[in-house]
């Protein structure tokens, strides 16, 4: 089941946190709302605590890197280069799901190498801890306010964030040839 | 046998003693070591059968009966590893400490009437004491391995074995009290006759305390469900995590030696020792006490009896091991201190009162009179203690202090 309560529910969110929701698509396969990156934690907190449908469980955080490394192809794409964070929420009592999307610049201040930032939602769902670490590790997004943001799947001294489209695999790691 | 060597063969005294001692030592050592190999094979087969497998089938032809030997050769060929940070001397010595302690205890274990390495009049106590030394090897191994898992294993072992010695000692004391002797030969002798003479069936208290003994014995030799020192799901392999090859196999041999020892102890203390359930020899008019061939044969039969009972005990331990999950360390200690010890204490008191008020048992005539076979040292007519026994009857009985005081 998905959120079908229509605009009423979203209007309440708009009323409680004006300006936080910047877009919505309720006709998509998974209806989603777009949230301003800086306010994601507030929105999540509202969704968990104050919303009529309490989204008490965070299922997944995904970062999608919209970037085409090949300049020829990049000229033809229809989307804006960005990192899109997708939060899949689930409400156990109501058994409905909700998708939040959040667009981030690929690099903070367009400085390659400095990670884009976004508030952490670990204060809302404790389960977000590992998910955020994974996103940081693989996609390179810095979650401010995360209690212990470090790599989780890759070794601590790994370089780069593998799920970035422009990721280049290191030639060697501690003397082990990779390619 | 010494007399035989001196008189018939004409060996000088010291050589005769040496030869006799060496023969006995070789016999005991080989029987136990060989027994350990057989038990290892049996454990593999039994575990396999319990788990719906076949176990070893090929080595040595049928039933894989040479598997233990093949294992031994494999272990010999293995590299002898020692961790970098280990205390070399203690690491190397630890297995032998365990092994020696376990095998030393067999000195005092009677296999049949007079078939005993050294007849000590404190045999029961000796065996318990020496068996307690086995833990020292384990502790040393755990400490010297320079591995945290080993350290955990040996700390558990130390705590567990030291604790379980308390109820174990209490259980052991009950047959000692009933027999009025710590000599295992005497204790077994006193249970001669039909199986209802066994201390297991002496009174309800001994029946209960036998099961306490079984629990404590399993715990004190570190078998499942009390095998916390080597708990593989928690501590990798516990105290022998860092051991390999032959050294490791010494721990193994010590474990099987101890298993056999506590089973044989149970047989002697509670299950009539070498006396079968039915006194076949006595019914046939034979006596084990005589020095002739018939006497030897009866003793041999007794030995088969005892070995059978001990083996049964070992098999039961294997059965338990492959059936039950492992307890947690606090539950092991709880079992010991909150259950085994109080039960053993109450049963001890109960057995004592029973012995005081119902020494003949409930069915008169079923039990042989208690004083029929006395401790060996009281039997001789010139025995000093016999002459000095306060009651003057030639039998030491408990005299309450109130009666002695004027």
């Amino acid at each position, binding site marked *: 089941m998905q959120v079908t309560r229509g605009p009423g529910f979203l209007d309440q969110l708009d009323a409680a946190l004006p300006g936080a929701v910047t877009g919505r698509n309720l006709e998509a396969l998974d209806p989603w709302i777009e949230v301003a990156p800086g306010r994601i934690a*507030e929105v999540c907190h509202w969704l968990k605590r104050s919303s009529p449908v309490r989204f008490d469980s965070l299922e997944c955080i995904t970062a999608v890197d919209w970037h085409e490394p090949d300049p020829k192809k990049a000229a033809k794409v229809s989307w804006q280069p960005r990192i899109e964070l997708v939060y899949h929420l689930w409400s156990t009592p109501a058994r409905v799901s909700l998708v939040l999307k959040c667009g981030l610049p690929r690099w903070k201040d367009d400085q390659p190498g400095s990670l884009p930032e976004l508030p952490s939602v670990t204060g*809302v769902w404790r389960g977000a801890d590992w998910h955020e670490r994974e996103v940081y590790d693989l996609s390179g997004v810095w979650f401010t306010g995360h209690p212990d943001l470090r790599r989780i799947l890759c070794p601590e001294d790994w370089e780069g964030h593998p799920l970035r489209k422009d990721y280049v695999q290191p030639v060697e790691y501690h003397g082990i040839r990779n390619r | 046998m010494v007399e035989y060597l001196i008189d018939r063969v004409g060996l000088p005294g010291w050589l005769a003693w040496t030869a006799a001692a060496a023969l006995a030592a070789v016999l005991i050592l080989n029987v136990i070591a060989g027994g350990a190999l057989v038990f290892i094979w049996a454990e593999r087969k039994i575990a396999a059968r319990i788990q719906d497998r076949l176990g070893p089938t090929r080595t040595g032809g049928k039933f894989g009966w040479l598997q233990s030997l093949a294992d031994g050769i494999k272990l010999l060929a293995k590299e002898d590893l020692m961790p970098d940070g280990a205390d070399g001397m203690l690491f190397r010595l630890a297995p032998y400490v365990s092994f020696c302690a376990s095998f030393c205890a067999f000195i005092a274990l009677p296999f049949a009437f007079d078939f005993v390495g050294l007849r000590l*009049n404190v045999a029961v106590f*000796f065996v318990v004491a020496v068996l307690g030394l086995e833990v020292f090897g384990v*502790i040393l191994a755990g400490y010297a391995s320079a591995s945290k898992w080993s350290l955990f294993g040996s*700390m558990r072992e130390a705590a567990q074995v*030291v604790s379980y010695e308390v109820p174990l000692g209490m259980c052991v004391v009950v047959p000692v009290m009933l027999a009025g*002797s710590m000599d295992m030969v005497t204790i077994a002798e006193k249970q001669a006759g039909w199986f209802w003479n066994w201390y297991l069936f002496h009174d309800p208290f001994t029946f209960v305390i036998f099961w306490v003994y079984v629990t404590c014995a399993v715990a004190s030799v570190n078998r499942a469900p009390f095998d916390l020192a080597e708990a593989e799901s928690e501590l990798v392999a516990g105290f022998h995590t860092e051991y390999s090859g032959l050294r490791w196999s010494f721990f193994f041999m010590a474990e099987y030696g101890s298993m056999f020892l506590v089973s044989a102890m149970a047989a002697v203390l509670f299950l009539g020792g070498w006396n079968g359930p039915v006194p076949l020899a006595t019914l046939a008019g034979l006596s084990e006490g005589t020095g002739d061939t018939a006497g030897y044969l009866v003793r041999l039969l007794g030995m088969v009896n005892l070995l059978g009972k001990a083996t049964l005990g070992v098999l039961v331990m294997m059965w338990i091991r492959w059936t039950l999950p492992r307890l947690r360390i606090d539950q092991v200690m709880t079992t010991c201190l909150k259950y085994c010890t109080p039960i053993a204490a109450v049963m001890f008191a109960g057995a004592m009162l029973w012995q005081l008020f119902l020494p003949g048992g409930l069915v008169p005539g079923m039990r042989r009179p208690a004083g029929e076979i006395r401790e060996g040292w009281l039997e001789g007519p010139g025995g000093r203690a016999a002459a000095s026994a306060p009651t003057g009857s030639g039998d*030491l009985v408990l005299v309450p202090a109130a009666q002695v005081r004027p």
Partner: protein
Amino acid sequence: MIGAAVAVASTSCLGAVVPPLAVLDWHAVFFMLFAAAACGCALAVVLADNVVRMAFYLVLSLGATAGLFFLAGAEFVGAMQLMIYVGGTLVLLVFGVMLTAQAPFVSIKTSAGEKAVAGLLGGALLTLLLVAALSVEPWRRPGSVGPTEPSATPLGMALVGVRVDEPPAGSPAVGRSGYLLPFEIISVHLLVVLVAAAYLARAKRRKTPRPVEMVASVEPPVSVAEHAAIGREAPAGAPARSGSVLVGGGS
């Protein structure tokens, strides 16, 4: 410990009479073997640096002493020695070392001054014991001690109040109940010691502090102003990573 070791060594040396080799007496051979082991290991205890090794040597030394007891026919005392000292005391000692294993305690270095004082003390004790032992007339001749008898039963009897020493008529000991009273006193004393030890070991400690669990349903509603704060700082409900979750914190 050094004093004890020297004392053990000296007792073991006591009466080590070397028999002529022609009459090889196994009893004497074993005696010498055990005595040498006891002395050698006692020395090793003194000279070793590592506490666990010391304990190990002490085990060997005490074990050898137990062997001496067995040779002397005091089987009960021998078994006691094994059970109490080797199986009990030393296991606990090593156990304690392992539980509190910290480098300065595991390795003990003795300074030259300490060695001198210990040597002096140990030597004095040894001399005293030797003099005392040699002053006993029957001990001066080998073989003068009669054949030993089993010791356990009379010992046990004596402890529960039976006189086995046959006091001569008229002696004040006649009619007294043997060693029952001392036995009982010692038992009660030991019980008191055990209870006291258990009491002392019970330092008053509070329960393991645990971070507060975040329970969604019972948390009070949060105002919008607080919303803004969430995510900008460390979340209140999440467990702190280091330090605070460690157990204990003194009594």
